[in-house]
C-alpha cells in the first residue's frame, strides 16, 4: 500500500475510543471464547503485544470481524509498523517543484495546469506462488493507485528479479510474470515503456515483481482519497466480492516462504477488461466534480478503503456489508472485509449526486451500489444485515504500533570489504566481453519487453531498451517526460548505504542521458525478514542512502512501497531497493538515444577512465570469476551532478549524437551497447593501457557519448567549464567494434551473443 509521506499524525499513541454514551458491543459472528479469539488473531499474523494493545485500545473484547480488520490494517503491507520510523528519513519536498502528496500515490505539478503522479508497488509473494495472476494483479493494483487520483495512466514500468536462468522453475516464473504483465497492461491500453530484469540465485525461492505506473491529470480533476462530509453516501463500484485473496497481505506478503506451503488461494485473479472500464468510468466521474473522495481496494479491500478514507478525513463511516455485490454465497462478514478481489473502488459521493454517479458506472456496465454513509463520530461501523459486527475508531484501526527494530551489520560485509581483488588478466579480452554480453544481467531483454505494448497511446518517443523511456505530453507540447527504473542489488548487498546512493545516482544519470532533468522519485523497497537484525540493517542503511542521495539531488520521494519477508528456506534475497525516477524535457524533440549513428562521429568517455578498485561488486567478477565481493566505489555526488548537468545541457543543445550511461560490464559493455543500438561499429583505442579494471570496472559517474567532429569544440568547452574529465576514444564506423590491443569483433557477433541468451533459455 502506501508510504505515508504526508506527515500523518498517527504516532502510535492510543486514541480515546470512549464515546459520550456507551455504544452497544458489536455482535460477534461466532461463539468463540476469548482464548479462541486470541488464537485467531495470532493465526492472522498479529503478535501477542499487538493483540494486548488492541484489547486496551478497544476497551472490550473485540469481535472476530474486528480482529480480522486489525490483522490486515496492522500488517506491514498496510500499516508499515516496522518501516515507518525508518521511512521518515526520506525527503518529501523539493525546492524546485510543488510536490503533490496523496495516500495512494504522489506527484508534482509539471505545469500549473497539469499534475503528474507516480508510484511503484511490489507483488512479490503472489508472483512466486502464481506468476501469471500475481504479476497481472500487481499491474492492476498500481494502475488503480494512479487513476484513483483522477489521473489517466500514461505509462507503466517494472523491475523484475529472478533466480538463475538455469533453473526450470525460474524460467516458469519469468514466462508467467512477463505474460501476466503484458496481458494486463496491453489490455488496458497503458504502454509499458521502462523496466529491468536481474537474475541472481538469492531470488530463486522468492522472485520480485515491482510494478510502476505514471499518470497525468488536469489539476482541476484531482480527486482526494479522504472521506468528508457527514451524510455523504459511500458507493462501492466495480467487480463483485469473492473469497479470492483473503489474507493476501497479512498472510502471504508478511511472512517468509516456508517449505511446501499451499498459498495459492491467497492470490487474487485479475480481469483487465473490468479494469479498463473502471479507468474510463472513474476518470469520467472525476470530471463531473461529484466525487468527494475515492480509493481503490487493494490489499485488505473493504477494510482498508473504509477505515483509511475515514481516518484521512477525520470522520467515521457506516457501511452495510449485505449491499456489497458478491460472487459467492455464504461469505462471513470477515471474509467480505478481508477479500482482495480485484477491480473494485470505494467512492464518497456528494449528497444528491449518488444516482447520477451510479448511472455513469452502470453505463460502463459496472456494479455501483450505495453501501453506507459518512458519519461525524470518527467510528467505523460495519453492519451485516442491520446487525453491527464491528465498531472501531478509524484512527485507532489505521494507527498500528511502530517498532524500532534492532540492527546489526551482516557478517559477510567485513570479509567482502577486505577481499583481495587482484586477479590475473583474462587471456582474451574479446572473449570476456562476449561472455559478459551473453550474461543474463547484461543481455538483451527484448524477449520480455516486446511482449508489452510500448506504443499504445501514441506518445512513446523512446521505448524500452535505452537508458530511459521518453514520452511526449500531448496536453502541453513540446513538453516531454522521461522515466527509468534502476536497482543494482549487488551494490546494495555489498554496501547497503553506498549501494543505495549509487542506485539513485544511476537513475538520475539515465535521465540526464536522454536530456531530462530528474523531478520525482518513487522507491520500491524489497528486503528480507525485518525481525532479523542483519536484514533490518540492510533496510535501514539503504533507506538512509536513498534519503541522502535524494536530498543532495533535491529530489522528493513522493511515493513508494515496502516489501519485507522476501526469504525462502534458502535464505534472504539480496537487499533490493528499486528507484523509479521521472524527469522532464522542456522540449521533447531535444533528446537522444544510446545508438552510435554516423560514421566519423567521435566517441568520448565522460568521467574517469580508470578508477582503482572498480572491479569490486562488478558483473565481470561474477561472470568471469564467480565472485561477488569487494566494496563498491564511492560516489562523489558533486562530480556526479556536474557530469549529469553537462550531459543534459549537451543533449538539449543538440551537440551529442548519442549518450549512454556506464553500468554493469563497465566501459566495454557500454561501448558494445552503443554499437548494437546503432548497428554500426567503432574504432577505438584506450590511452591508459588495457586492464580488466579499465575495460570492465563499474565506477559510477561515467557516460559514453558520440558527437559529430564539428561539435567537438563546443563539447570540450562545456565539459571543461564543468570540470568533467573526458577522454577521446576514437570514431564511429565500419561493422566491427575494435578496441586496439583488446579485440576486433564484428557487431553481428556481439549482437548474436547479446540477443541469444533469453530466447534460447525460454525456447519451449
Amino acid at each position, binding site marked *: 500500500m502506501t508510504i505515508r509521506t504526508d506527515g500523518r499524525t498517527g504516532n502510535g499513541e492510543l486514541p480515546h475510543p470512549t464515546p459520550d454514551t456507551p455504544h452497544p458491543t458489536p455482535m460477534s459472528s461466532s461463539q468463540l471464547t476469548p482464548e479462541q479469539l486470541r488464537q485467531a488473531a495470532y493465526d492472522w499474523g498479529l503478535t501477542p503485544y499487538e493483540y494486548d494493545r488492541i484489547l486496551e485500545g478497544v476497551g472490550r473484547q473485540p469481535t472476530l470481524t474486528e480482529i480480522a480488520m486489525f490483522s490486515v490494517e496492522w500488517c506491514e503491507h498496510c500499516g508499515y509498523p516496522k518501516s515507518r520510523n525508518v521511512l521518515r528519513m526520506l525527503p518529501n519536498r523539493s525546492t524546485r517543484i510543488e510536490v503533490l502528496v496523496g495516500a495512494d500515490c504522489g506527484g508534482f505539478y509539471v505545469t500549473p495546469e497539469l499534475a503528474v503522479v507516480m508510484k511503484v508497488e511490489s507483488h512479490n509473494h503472489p508472483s512466486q506462488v502464481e506468476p501469471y495472476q500475481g504479476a497481472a494483479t500487481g499491474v492492476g493494483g498500481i494502475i488503480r493507485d494512479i487513476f484513483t487520483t483522477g*489521473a*489517466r495512466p500514461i505509462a507503466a514500468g517494472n523491475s523484475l528479479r529472478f533466480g538463475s536462468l538455469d533453473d526450470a522453475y525460474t524460467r516458469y516464473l519469468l514466462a508467467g510474470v512477463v*505474460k501476466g504483465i*503484458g*496481458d494486463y497492461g*496491453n*489490455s*488496458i*491500453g497503458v504502454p509499458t515503456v521502462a523496466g529491468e530484469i536481474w537474475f541472481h540465485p538469492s531470488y530463486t525461492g522468492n522472485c520480485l515483481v515491482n510494478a510502476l505506473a505514471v499518470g*497525468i*491529470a*488536469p489539476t482541476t*480533476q484531482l480527486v482526494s482519497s479522504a472521506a468528508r462530509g457527514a451524510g455523504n453516501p459511500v458507493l462501492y463500484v466495480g467487480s463483485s466480492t469473492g473469497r479470492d485473496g483473503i489474507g493476501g497481505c497479512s498472510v502471504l506478503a508478511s511472512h517468509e516462504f516456508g517449505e511446501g506451503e499451499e498459498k495459492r488461494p491467497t492470490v487474487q485473479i485479475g*480481469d*483487465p*477488461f473490468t479494469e*479498463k*472500464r473502471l479507468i*474510463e468510468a472513474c*476518470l*469520467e466521474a472525476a*470530471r*463531473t466534480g461529484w466525487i468527494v473522495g475515492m480509493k481503490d481496494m487493494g490489499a485488505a479491500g473493504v477494510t482498508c478503503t473504509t477505515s483509511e478514507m475515514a481516518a484521512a478525513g477525520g470522520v467515521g463511516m457506516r457501511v452495510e456489508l449485505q449491499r456489497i455485490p458478491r460472487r459467492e454465497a455464504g461469505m462471513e462478514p470477515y471474509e467480505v472485509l478481508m477479500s482482495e478481489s480485484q477491480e473494485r473502488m470505494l467512492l464518497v459521493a456528494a449528497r444528491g449526486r449518488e444516482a447520477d454517479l451510479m448511472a455513469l458506472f452502470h*453505463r*460502463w*456496465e459496472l456494479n455501483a451500489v450505495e453501501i453506507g454513509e459518512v458519519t461525524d463520530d470518527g467510528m467505523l461501523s460495519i453492519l451485516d444485515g442491520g446487525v453491527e459486527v464491528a465498531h472501531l475508531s478509524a484512527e485507532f484501526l489505521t494507527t498500528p504500533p511502530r517498532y524500532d527494530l534492532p540492527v546489526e551489520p551482516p557478517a559477510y560485509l567485513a570479509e567482502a570489504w577486505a577481499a583481495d581483488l587482484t586477479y590475473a588478466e583474462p587471456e582474451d579480452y574479446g572473449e570476456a566481453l562476449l561472455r559478459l554480453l551473453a550474461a543474463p544481467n547484461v543481455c538483451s531483454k527484448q524477449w520480455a*519487453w*516486446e*511482449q*508489452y*505494448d*510500448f*506504443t*499504445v*497511446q*501514441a*506518445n*512513446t*518517443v523512446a521505448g524500452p531498451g535505452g537508458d530511459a523511456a521518453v514520452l*511526449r505530453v*500531448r*496536453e502541453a507540447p513540446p513538453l516531454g517526460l522521461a522515466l527509468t527504473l534502476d536497482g543494482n542489488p549487488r551494490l546494495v548487498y555489498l554496501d547497503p548505504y553506498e549501494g543505495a546512493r549509487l542506485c539513485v545516482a544511476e537513475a538520475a544519470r539515465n535521465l540526464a542521458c536522454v536530456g531530462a532533468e530528474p523531478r520525482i522519485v518513487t522507491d520500491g523497497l524489497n528486503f528480507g525478514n525485518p525481525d532479523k537484525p542483519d536484514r533490518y540493517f540492510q533496510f535501514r542503511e539503504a533507506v538512509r542512502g536513498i534519503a541522502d542521495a535524494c536530498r543532495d539531488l533535491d529530489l522528493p520521494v513522493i511515493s513508494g512501497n515496502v516489501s519485507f519477508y522476501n526469504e525462502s528456506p534458502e535464505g534472504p534475497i539480496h537487499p533490493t531497493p528499486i528507484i523509479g525516477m521521472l524527469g522532464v524535457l522542456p522540449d*521533447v*524533440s531535444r533528446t537522444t538515444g544510446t545508438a552510435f549513428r554516423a560514421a566519423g562521429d567521435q566517441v568520448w568517455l565522460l568521467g574517469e577512465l580508470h578508477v582503482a578498485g572498480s572491479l569490486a561488486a562488478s558483473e565481470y567478477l561474477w561472470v568471469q570469476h564467480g565472485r561477488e565481493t569487494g566494496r563498491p566505489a564511492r560516489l562523489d555526488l558533486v562530480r556526479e551532478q556536474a557530469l549529469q548537468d553537462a550531459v543534459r545541457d549537451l543533449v538539449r543543445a543538440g551537440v551529442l549524437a548519442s549518450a549512454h550511461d556506464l553500468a554493469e560490464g563497465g566501459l566495454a559493455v557500454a561501448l558494445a551497447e552503443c554499437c548494437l543500438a546503432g548497428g554500426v561499429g567503432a574504432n577505438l583505442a584506450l590511452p591508459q593501457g588495457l586492464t580488466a579494471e579499465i575495460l570492465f570496472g563499474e565506477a559510477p559517474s561515467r557516460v559514453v557519448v558520440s558527437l559529430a567532429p564539428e561539435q567537438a569544440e563546443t563539447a570540450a568547452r562545456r565539459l571543461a567549464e564543468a570540470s568533467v574529465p573526458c577522454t577521446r576514444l576514437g570514431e564511429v564506423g565500419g561493422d566491427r567494434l575494435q578496441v586496439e590491443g583488446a579485440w576486433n569483433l564484428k557487431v553481428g557477433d556481439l549482437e548474436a551473443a547479446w540477443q541469444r541468451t533469453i530466447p534460447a533459455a525460454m525456447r519451449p
Partner: protein
Amino acid sequence: MMTRPNAGRQHDGVPGGRAGRTAAAGAEFPSPDPAGFLPLSSCRWGVVVFPGTNCEYETRYVLGTVLGQPVRFVWHRETDLSDLDAVVVPGGFAHGDYLRAGAIARFSPVMEALSAFAAAGKPVLGICNGFQVLVEAGLLPGAMLRNQSQRFLCRWVNLRVESTCSPFLAACRPGQVLRMPMAHGEGCYYADPETLAAMESRGQIVFRYAERDGRVTPDANPNGSVGSIAGVSNAAGNVLGLMPHPERASEALLGSDDGRALLAGLLAVPDAGGTPAFPGSGAGNEAGA
C-alpha cells in the same frame, strides 16, 4: 516534417466525457460535402468505441489534431451513423476480447449500422482489434489466429503496399514501404487458398510485412500470417483492415509519419500534375527513427 493543418482546433487533453454522446471532442461538423467520399477536402470521421477499446484517443488525436478533420466518438450502442463520411474501428480489446478477438464485439448494436454503412460504399478502416472485429463481423474475408509464437508482440514493422484499389490508399503507390508499430497477440491472418486467390485477383491484399527495402521474407513476417499478409480490403475496396497501427506512426517525433498516408488517403486531392497531395508530408521509406 510534422504539419498540423488545423492545430488547435481540438484539444485532446485528458479526454472529455464521451460515452453515449453524439458529438464528443467539440468538433463541429462543416456543411456536408456533396462530392461523395472521394476525393474530399474534409471528411467527417467516427471512431467506434466498445468497452475495452483502447486506441480511441490517439486515433481521434491524429484525425482531429494532426490532420485537422472533424471527428467524433461512436459509442458501441449507437445505431445512427448518418452524420459520418468515414468510420475507424480502432485498436484495443473490445469486450475484453474474451472468447476470441472481436467475437463478442460483432454483436454490439453499432455493428448492424456499420454493416449498412459499409454496404453503402462508405469507407471503414479497421486497425488491429478493429481489423479483428471487421473480420469476425464478415465485413472482411479471412480469419485471425494467435501469433505463431503464441506470444503478444510489439514491434516496429515495414509494410509493403501491394494494391491501391482502396480509396484509403489514394496517397500510396504500389511497392511503397510504410513503417509503423504493431502490437498484438492474435494477428496471424488466415484465409483458404481459393479465397486468397480471389482476393489476390481483385487486389484485396493490401499490405504485406516486408523488410525495409520492400522484400517480403519469412524473417519479416512477425506473426505467421499466410502470405505475410498485414492488411486486406473487401472486394469493393471501401472496407480496409490492417494489424499495425498507422495512428501511432503519424508524427515524425514518434519515429515515423508513414501512417498518415493511410489515414489521409481519403483526403487525397489530385493536383494538376496528377500527384496526390494530402495533409502531411512524408509517406515514404525515408522516415526513420
